[in-house]
């Protein structure tokens, strides 16, 4: 166990000591933040204002701001779960390339533990980084004076982050087997960084996509996790808004917001409940873990 923990610690140190790699692993999150500051916030607020016509006297501008900022935060967190997991797993490819993997193979740590150590360290790094983002985001939201999250919501958010990190890492572990060197994985990371923001609906709400595109986006567990984060972060502010409206609109405003900003995932035209999304994420993680155990037993054993 000591050897296993030693490798986990080493993998984490390799990631966190490389400041450049840490920044690049958050590139999508940074881009989401910059785009939000430049124009996404404006379009989100316009969409919200459009939906609240006639209700302006009930809803405070500050709450609209909190709502839009929370959409941003969920997008940043969702993309970080994907890109940080990939960046830390890249150590696995780099180790094969630089023969560090061979050095580890000469130690008494079993091959199964070596492979598992990459999975565990990546899940930890992804959880830590996303939790850090969430904590900072929470701090900023609190500083604005309007926070509608209960202690239970906050604890739940960290739980969803951990689940998302595990599922994203398990999913990416399988993809990692195909890379022989870091130039190939870096090329893929470029594509992944660009696609991640769209897949989780950080740039454009998934509701804007066609049913088939929605289904494709929602194959990825990260989309479901982002939706779960969105619900946890924003149900408070939505119910506050609903209370402020006082039932004048029969709950239509909140319903519209949930539809536009993707509070449910859809597959094959059918909306999934949050618990169904949770089960899907856990199931995909379990299937991916089982698959990579089989794959790595074949590829990481002595040839």
């Amino acid at each position: 166990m000591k050897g296993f923990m030693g490798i986990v610690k080493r993998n984490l140190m390799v990631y966190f000591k490389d400041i450049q790699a840490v920044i690049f692993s958050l590139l999508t999150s940074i881009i989401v933040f910059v785009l939000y500051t430049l124009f996404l916030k404006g379009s989100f607020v316009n969409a919200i204002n459009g939906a609240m016509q006639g209700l302006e006297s009930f809803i405070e501008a500050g709450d609209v701001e909190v709502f839009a900022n929370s959409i941003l935060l969920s997008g940043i967190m969702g993309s970080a779960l994907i890109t940080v997991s990939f960046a830390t797993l890249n150590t696995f490819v780099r180790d094969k390339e630089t023969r560090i993997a061979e050095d580890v193979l000469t130690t008494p740590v079993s091959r199964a533990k070596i492979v598992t150590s990459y999975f565990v360290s990546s899940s930890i790094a992804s959880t830590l980084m996303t939790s850090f983002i969430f904590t900072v985001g929470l701090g900023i939201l609190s500083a604005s004076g309007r926070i509608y999250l209960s202690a239970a919501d906050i604890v739940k958010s960290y739980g969803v982050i951990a689940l998302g990190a595990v599922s994203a890492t398990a999913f990416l572990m399988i993809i990692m087997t195909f890379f022989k060197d870091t130039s190939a994985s870096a090329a893929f990371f470029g594509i992944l960084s660009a696609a991640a923001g769209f897949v989780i609906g950080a740039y454009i709400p998934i509701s804007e996509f066609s049913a088939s595109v929605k289904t494709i986006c929602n194959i990825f567990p990260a989309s479901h996790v982002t939706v779960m984060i969105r619900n946890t972060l924003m149900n408070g502010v939505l119910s506050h808004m609903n209370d402020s409206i006082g039932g004048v609109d029969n709950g239509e405003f909140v319903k519209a917001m949930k539809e536009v900003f993707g509070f449910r995932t859809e597959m094959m035209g059918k909306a999934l409940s949050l618990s169904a999304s949770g089960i899907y994420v856990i199931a995909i993680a379990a299937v991916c873990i089982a698959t990579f155990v089989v794959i790595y037993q074949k590829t990481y054993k002595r040839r």
Partner: protein
Amino acid sequence: MNAIEVKNLVKNYKNFQAVKGIDFSVKEGELFAFLGENGAGKSTTINMLCTILSKTSGDVKICGHELGKEDDKIREKIGVVFQTSVLDPKLTVKENLYTRGSYYGLSKKEIAARINEFDESLHIGDILNRRFDKLSGGQKRRVDIVRALIHKPEILFLDEPTTGLDPKTRKEVWDYIMELKNKRHMTIFLTTHYMEETDVADRVVILDHGKILCDDTPAGLKTKYSSRRLLWYTPKSKINDEVMASFTDAEKVTYEGDRYIATLKGDALKFLNDNRDKVTDYELLKGSMDDVFLNLTGRELA
């Protein structure tokens, strides 16, 4: 007692046999050199012995443990210095050594004690807190050796450990290897491209196309597969056919530049004594491992 015993070791890849049934053994405390060109099967063999690759067939025992069945026990007994550094560039020397030590279940206290032991001969105390990628080539190699020895292995595998190092650093590394052999009686398994480095080995095995060509001491190999040479400096005009004919201990004589080079099959003393008025200077060269390799394979080691 043998530290390593290899019997009929074979490694097959899909359409290629890299190692073709080799046999050898390495005694405890021996410095054993494994020579061969790229593609000869050296790395495949060393990787099998270090449990990185699996063997296709054959029996291998390392420190009494059977390869393929007791690999974990073997891994506790071996340390490997790879051709290139396998430590993390962005971590400090200390972080690298502590993480690697933990792979063997060593506590921080034990690792610190080991590092202290090495400081005396490898002088790594001053560089412990420096990032690994900021070290010079020699410093990196010293840390690589400490990493390989951190868990007190019984056998040290050195895979071309001095390739790319400057002469001063090469000497430092070799001084330490000899210290390990002479003072700590460690078994050392070495592969190298530098033929002269094998001169200090207790035994040398030359591998070619997956087969062992010879297995002997450096002196034994030189006696069997190389000849001494006499170089003497004298104007060509002073040596006539009669003088040449009298040099019966020479196998072949050539004139290059300002000197004669004779490949000896016997003694050169009589010839030098008889012609001391004509020979202004001379050198007697022993056969080298280069000659051994050339004579055995018909090729020079690249």
